[in-house]
C-alpha cells in the first residue's frame, strides 16, 4: 500500500534526519509523528495546486501556525499572489450590482433574496452564483458598451462640468497624462491637434486601462485589450473592442480642462465642436 510505504519511509527519514541534524534542529522534532509530515505535505501540495485544501483535524494552536506558515511561504512563490484578471473583472461586476442595489441598512432579509450570512458563508455555491451573475452582466455590457460608472442608474454628476486636470506647461507635445476626477478616470494627451482626452475605462468591461509608454498604447489588465493612443482598438489587440470614448477638452487659465458631461446624456449639444466631440463608447459621433 502506498500510504503504508510512505509512512514507513517517512518514519525512517524522520529518524535519519533527526540523527544527522545538529542540536538546534533536533530539538524541534519533539512530539512529532509521521502523520504530521505526510499531512502537511498533502496540505502543501493542495496549496501549490492553488486548490482549497481539505480541512485538517482539530489541532493545537502551534500546529495551526505551521499550516499558516505554509500559506505565507506559498504566497512568496513567483506570481502566486497576483489576482487573476478574470477574477478581478468578475468581482467588479458583482460589486457593481451590489452597489446599485445598496440599501442604507443591510440586514438579512427574511423573505426574499439571499441572506447576507448565507452569501458570506456559502463558499463555493455563493461564488458560483456570483460568477453566474457576473457572466450575465458581462454579456449585457458587451452589447451596450459603457464605462463602469455610466452603467449606474444613479447620476454621477448632476450637470456637466469643466474640470482642470493638468497645467498646459506640464504637458509637452506627445505627452500623455492620467487624470482622476471624482467621477472619471482618463488620459489627457498633447497632440498636433491640441489637447485631447480619453476615458480610461476599457470599453469591454470597464477595467481601467494603463498607459504603456514604450508601446504608446493603452493596455487593459483584465482581458488584454489594447488601444492606440487615439483610443481606437489596436490592430494587434488580441480582442478588438470599441474605441475608448473621447472627452472634450479646453484650455482655461493655463490649465487643460476636461468636460465631464451629465450622465444619461453622453452627447449633449454643448459638446459639439471642432475638437474632440464627446463620443459614446459605441463609436457614434456626438453631432446630432
Amino acid at each position, binding site marked *: 500500500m502506498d500510504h503504508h510505504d510512505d509512512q514507513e519511509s517517512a518514519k525512517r527519514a524522520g529518524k535519519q534526519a533527526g540523527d544527522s541534524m545538529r542540536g538546534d534542529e533536533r530539538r524541534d522534532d519533539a512530539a512529532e509523528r509521521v502523520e504530521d509530515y505526510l499531512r502537511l505535505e498533502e496540505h502543501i501540495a493542495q496549496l501549490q495546486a492553488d486548490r482549497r485544501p481539505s480541512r*485538517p483535524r482539530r489541532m493545537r494552536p502551534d500546529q495551526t501556525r505551521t499550516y499558516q506558515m505554509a500559506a505565507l511561504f506559498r504566497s512568496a512563490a513567483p506570481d502566486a499572489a497576483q489576482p487573476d484578471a478574470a477574477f478581478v473583472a468578475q468581482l467588479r461586476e458583482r460589486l457593481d450590482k451590489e452597489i446599485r442595489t445598496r440599501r*442604507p441598512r443591510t440586514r438579512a432579509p427574511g423573505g426574499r433574496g439571499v441572506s447576507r450570512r448565507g452569501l458570506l458563508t456559502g463558499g463555493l455555491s455563493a461564488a458560483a452564483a456570483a460568477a453566474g451573475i457576473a457572466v450575465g452582466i458581462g454579456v449585457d455590457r458587451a452589447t451596450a458598451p459603457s464605462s463602469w460608472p455610466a452603467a449606474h442608474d444613479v447620476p454621477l454628476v448632476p450637470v456637466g462640468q469643466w474640470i482642470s486636470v493638468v497645467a498646459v506647461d506640464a504637458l509637452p507635445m506627445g505627452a500623455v497624462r492620467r487624470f482622476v476626477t471624482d467621477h472619471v478616470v482618463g488620459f489627457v494627451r498633447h497632440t498636433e491637434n491640441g489637447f485631447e482626452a480619453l476615458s480610461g475605462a476599457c470599453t469591454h468591461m470597464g477595467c481601467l486601462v494603463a498607459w504603456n509608454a514604450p508601446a504608446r498604447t493603452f493596455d487593459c489588465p483584465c482581458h488584454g485589450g489594447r488601444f492606440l493612443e487615439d483610443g481606437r482598438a489596436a490592430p494587434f489587440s488580441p480582442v478588438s473592442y470599441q474605441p475608448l470614448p473621447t472627452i472634450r477638452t479646453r484650455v482655461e487659465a493655463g490649465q487643460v480642462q476636461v468636460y465631464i458631461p451629465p450622465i444619461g446624456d453622453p452627447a449633449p449639444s454643448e459638446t459639439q465642436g471642432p475638437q474632440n466631440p464627446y463620443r459614446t463608447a459605441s463609436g457614434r459621433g456626438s453631432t446630432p
Partner: protein
Amino acid sequence: MDSEEPRVAAPTHDTPRLQALYEENVAAVYRFVYSKVGNREEAEDLTSQVFIKAVRTVDQARDVTSIQSWLFQVARTTVADHWRRFYRLRVNSLDDLLDAGWEGPVEAREDVRSFQPERRVRRLLASLPDRYREVLTFRFLQNLSIRETAEQMHLTEANVKVLQFRALKKAAAIDHADS
C-alpha cells in the same frame, strides 16, 4: 420592515468612491488574503467576501485613508473568521484567534497597499538554519516538487517532507515570538 424599504440608490458621490476603493485595493487585499490561505480558490472566495462586506457596510462619512484602514480591518476579520472555521476553533474566543496567529484589530492602521508578505518571508528565511532555509526556498520560492527538492539537496523524498515540516514549524515559532 426590511422588505418594505424602498430601493435606495447610493448617494451620487458614493458610487465612484466605492469603485475607486475596489480598483485601488483589490490587488493588495488579494495579496494579503493569499498570504493567509496560500491558494487561489480560497483567496478569491475571501477577497470577494471582503469587498461585498465593504460595499454593504461602508460608512460614507469616512475619509479615504480611514476607509482603507477599515477595508484592511474587514480583510483581517474575514480571514480570522475563515481560520476559525477551517481549524474548528471555538467560536467567540478571542484568545483562540490570537493564539492561532490573528494579529487582532490594533494594527488596523497598517496600510493595505504596502502590505508585503514577501518581506516577512525573507526575514524569516534569514533567521532560519541553512538547511531549513534551503528546503523552504526550493519548495516555495522556487516552487520545486518534493522530488526535485530531494535531488537538489541530496536527500530522499521522505527526508524532504520531514525537513520542510520542521522548517515551517521553526519559522512559525520565530514568527510567533516576534509578534
